């Protein structure tokens, strides 16, 4: 029963996201297969995850889980239902002192179960003038322990215009989600080198997006 309801809510959320953003997925290296992958995306809006999710083909979407903050998603029963049952989020406590489980281990478990992950390595929403904030280290730890897993840079364009920080009502603006060519970690690559390369890969995807003059 909960599963049916969660599926229905998931479809309604995707329909709503399409209505507002007419979201279009652009696949620079062809459409995805269903093998577990790590999608890492820029983060400017609370709706980012939903948009990536809506842009994925249905078969891929049903086995793709966001990595999200438990201190946000478990604050009330409605959010907990949406976070746990609808999005099947891998919930991570952002406060190290309160943690009972290792966040990287939680993500690895999800990958080993055959799920793909969506994660926002900037760690928080980017409100500044820079295209990307420095990446947190989670992506590196994940990559080092699953060296064969494809890491897909994902650029979300325009959603911060549809739903800027502090607004509740989204306005209809066309958004695109561009999935770049996957990267993998190299043997002996240092944390700094890898994170810089991952960030550069995402910035490169951002440059391919067609946008009006500003």
């Amino acid at each position: 029963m909960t599963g049916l309801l969660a599926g229905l809510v998931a479809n309604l959320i995707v329909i709503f996201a399409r209505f507002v953003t007419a979201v279009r997925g652009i696949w620079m290296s062809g459409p995805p297969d269903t093998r577990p992958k790590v999608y890492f995306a820029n983060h400017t809006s609370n709706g980012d995850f939903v948009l990536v999710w809506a842009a994925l083909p249905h078969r891929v979407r049903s086995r793709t889980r966001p990595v999200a903050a438990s201190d946000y998603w478990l604050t009330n029963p409605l959010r907990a239902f949406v976070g746990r049952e609808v999005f099947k989020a891998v919930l991570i406590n952002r406060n190290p002192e309160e943690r009972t489980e290792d966040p990287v281990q939680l993500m690895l478990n999800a990958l080993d179960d055959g799920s793909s992950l969506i994660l926002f390595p900037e760690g928080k929403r980017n409100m500044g003038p820079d295209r990307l904030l420095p990446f947190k280290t989670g992506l590196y730890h994940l990559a080092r322990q699953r060296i064969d897993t494809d890491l897909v840079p994902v650029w979300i364009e325009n959603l911060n215009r549809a739903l800027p920080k502090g607004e509740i009502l989204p306005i209809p603006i066309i958004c695109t989600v561009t999935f770049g060519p996957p990267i993998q970690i190299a043997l002996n690559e240092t944390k700094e080198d890898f994170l810089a390369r991952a960030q550069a890969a995402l910035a490169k995807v951002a440059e391919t997006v067609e946008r009006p003059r500003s």
Partner: protein
Amino acid sequence: MTMPLPDLTSLLAGLGLFMLVASVAGYVLQLWFSPEGDNPVIENLNARIRSWWAMIILMALALLAGRVGTTLLFAFASFAALREFVTLLDTRRGDHWAVAVAFFIVLPLQYWFIATNWYGLYSILIPVYAFLIIPMIAVLRGDTERFLGRVAGIQWALMICVYCIAHVPALLNLEIPGYAGRNVMLIAFLIIVVQGSDVAQYIWGKLLGKRKIAPSVSPSKTVEGFVGGALSAVVIGAALSWITPFGPVRAGLMAFVIVIAGFLGGLVMSAIKRDRGVKDWGHTIPGHGGFLDRLDSVIFSAPIFFHLTRYWWSLT
């Protein structure tokens, strides 16, 4: 509400036949020139034809469904068009409320007044009330950076995407003596003349096009395409006089006005795209681009067609 009109069914049957011929021609051209799918012109042509089928079927269903179906279809077209237009605007956070009001209050109200035939209000809602209220809302957010340009952009978006497009279903409100219950045919006339002209300009341009007519605005438009398209549309219009309250000569003249307004309107919309640095308004309709790429000439001709018909033929 009413039984499907015999006129409408025979018109749709004719269109279906025409599309069948076009599809066969597209298929033959593909076998000949693009067997591997490598000729972009042929591939685009066939994508266009496929999209035309979808658009004609949708349009036919709406017209057959009568007033409610037609109004809803154009309300949705306005929504999709407004979404494309606003996407290309250089909005700032301070525009959020103004844009939200445009989408969620002005657009539904405009179509509500059209559906309830409140002429006095649907003809001034956007040019008077929205024109004044949009900047009032924007100014409350206190962001003065590029204020005039931002507000004007939203006002333009509403005029183009909501006010002008809404004049198509508004044709259902005209009361023309001896034409009662047949107003839906005015919509069919307008759409067929406009889109027929676009298609004819495309075909004449591809066949004979040499001299560019507006190279800095729309490099694909040619003098030959325009003249051939306009003449074809006038012939189509005159030939369709049996579905209108006009005689053949006036139907041809009406078609001429529609074509000129549509052509220049198409140039205006191209100039806006150039200014913003994009090729198409959107990607929703394969082969065509966005809703606005398909509707640009309807937008500029619909209000003129509405008012000419209203002035000379309608009682209201």
